[in-house]
Each structure stands twice: as structure tokens, then as C-alpha cells.
């Protein structure tokens, strides 16, 4: 099954890297949508069917955490798995995000293998949040 994936990050470099890494990791991608912040991310989610979201935390306009809170308040959007891709390494932060329903946490910089394993874990065995560094 190929996935529709949304990448939400204010860095065009990181969006490109995730796109490239998904290809390198041979993750089956049908459509890849991009957004520069949480607000745009929510717009993409209402425009398109998305199977998986990769989101940064610190972004202008709307942060990844604010976007996740908005998704959680929506009956349909709250079912979409979210993986945080961030530079932050705080275990406390990860615990907070897990409580908000975040499925996994990838710390930048990351390898194709980490990304592949997280997609496999989240899409194959949903419900097991895991921190990947």
C-alpha cells in the first residue's frame, strides 16, 4: 500500500530531505504534500486524504504542537497518525507529545533507516509510540 504523506516543516531543506529519505528508505509514497507551518498543515489535511503526517515542533504562524491540538479536537483528523521530526531531545517533551497522541518522535539529524523503521512501526503496528534518535 502506498501512503499519502504530509510533511509540515518551515524549512524547505528539511522537507526536501524527508522527501528524498522516504525514497531512499523505499517507503511507498502515493502523494507527498508539503506545508510550511501548522496552519498550512491543517489546510492540506482538509484538502487531501492523508495517511501519515511528519511535523516539526518550532514553526512560525502555528507550531506543530498547536496543530496537533487542533487535529485532536477534530473527529476525523485525530485518527491520522503524527510523527514529530524535531531537533529537540527532551524526554519530558516526548512524554507530553505521546499524551497528545503523537505516535513517534524522530530527532534530527536522522538516517533513512530510522525513517523507514518509524513508518513501518506507525503504519504497521499503530499505538506504540517510540523515540528514535
Amino acid at each position, binding site marked *: 500500500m502506498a501512503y499519502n504523506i504530509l510533511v509540515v516543516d518551515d524549512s524547505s531543506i528539511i522537507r526536501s530531505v524527508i522527501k528524498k529519505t522516504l525514497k531512499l528508505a523505499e517507503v511507498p509514497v502515493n502523494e507527498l504534500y508539503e506545508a510550511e507551518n501548522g496552519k498550512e498543515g491543517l489546510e492540506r489535511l482538509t484538502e487531501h486524504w492523508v495517511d501519515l503526517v511528519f511535523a516539526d515542533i518550532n514553526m512560525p504562524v502555528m507550531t506543530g504542537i498547536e496543530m496537533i491540538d487542533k487535529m485532536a479536537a477534530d473527529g476525523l483528523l485525530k485518527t491520522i497518525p503524527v510523527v514529530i521530526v524535531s531537533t529537540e531531545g*527532551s524526554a*519530558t517533551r516526548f512524554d507530553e507529545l505521546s499524551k497528545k497522541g503523537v505516535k513517534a518522535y524522530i530527532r*534530527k539529524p536522522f538516517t533513512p533507516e530510522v525513517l523507514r523503521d518509524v513508518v513501518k512501526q506507525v503504519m504497521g503496528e499503530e499505538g506504540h509510540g517510540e523515540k528514535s534518535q
Partner: protein
Amino acid sequence: MEKNHSELLIKVLEKVLEQLAFMFAEAVEKGELVGERERYLYATMTFKGHTSGTIGIAITEETGKALANNILGIEEGEEVGEDKSIDALKEFINIVCGQLMTKVFGEGPVFNLSVPEARKLTTEKWEELKARPETVGMMVEEMPMLAHVSF
């Protein structure tokens, strides 16, 4: 900047450059960083938590291009736009800041990191930055880099 903080900053810069961009860096005496008519980029960001502070990284425009090329896996000879160089530097400092917080304070504390800002730097401002006691000097594949962090 305390000596152990500058040493940690250098270690983090080396590690992130290697992991993010497959580039190798080493600390050098700032006096060795002689640049003539170079054009520079300077990024800064703040962190707020139980301790607050600022981190800054300055590189040449050439290093910015190399950083963007390496992160994106663009072949040598192909051009990346200035926006990509700036974006690469912002992402670089963002990752360095996150990694440094963990190195210095461990995985417990939560820090709110600002969105990085980047701008061009004149040679005069580069020299001013280099002269500051808290600034460390590095060579990234034979290209100069300055960095500082204050808590």
C-alpha cells in the same frame, strides 16, 4: 563562555556537520581564520527554559552553498539558490541548538527554541564577532566558521 561549554559546542558542531551534511570540521585558533573579501551569513536563535540564552553561527556564503548542496545531495557544479544556503544554515543552527541543550542539560528539561533567523554579515561585523571572547573558530573543509553560545 565557560571552557567546557565552548568545548561542548565544538563537539556538537563537528557531530552535526558530519551527520547532517557529511562535512568535517575542526577547531582552530581564531587568528588562523583569515578571510579576504568574503561574504558571510550569520544565523542566531534563542532558547528559553530553566536557563535562557542565545546561540549564533557565522559562515561564508561559500560554506552555505556547500552545506545546502551536501544536505540535499546536489552534485558539485550544480547551483543552489541563496535562499537554500540561508535555509541550510538555519536548519544547521536549529539542530546544533537542540543537540547542545541535551549535551549540557540532559534529556529532562524542556526548552522552547525560537525560529532561527539569518542575515548577511559584512567583513567588519565578521571581524567583530571573531574578536568576541565567547566566539570559537572552526574550519569546515578549509572554510572558516565562527560560533558562540551564551547561557
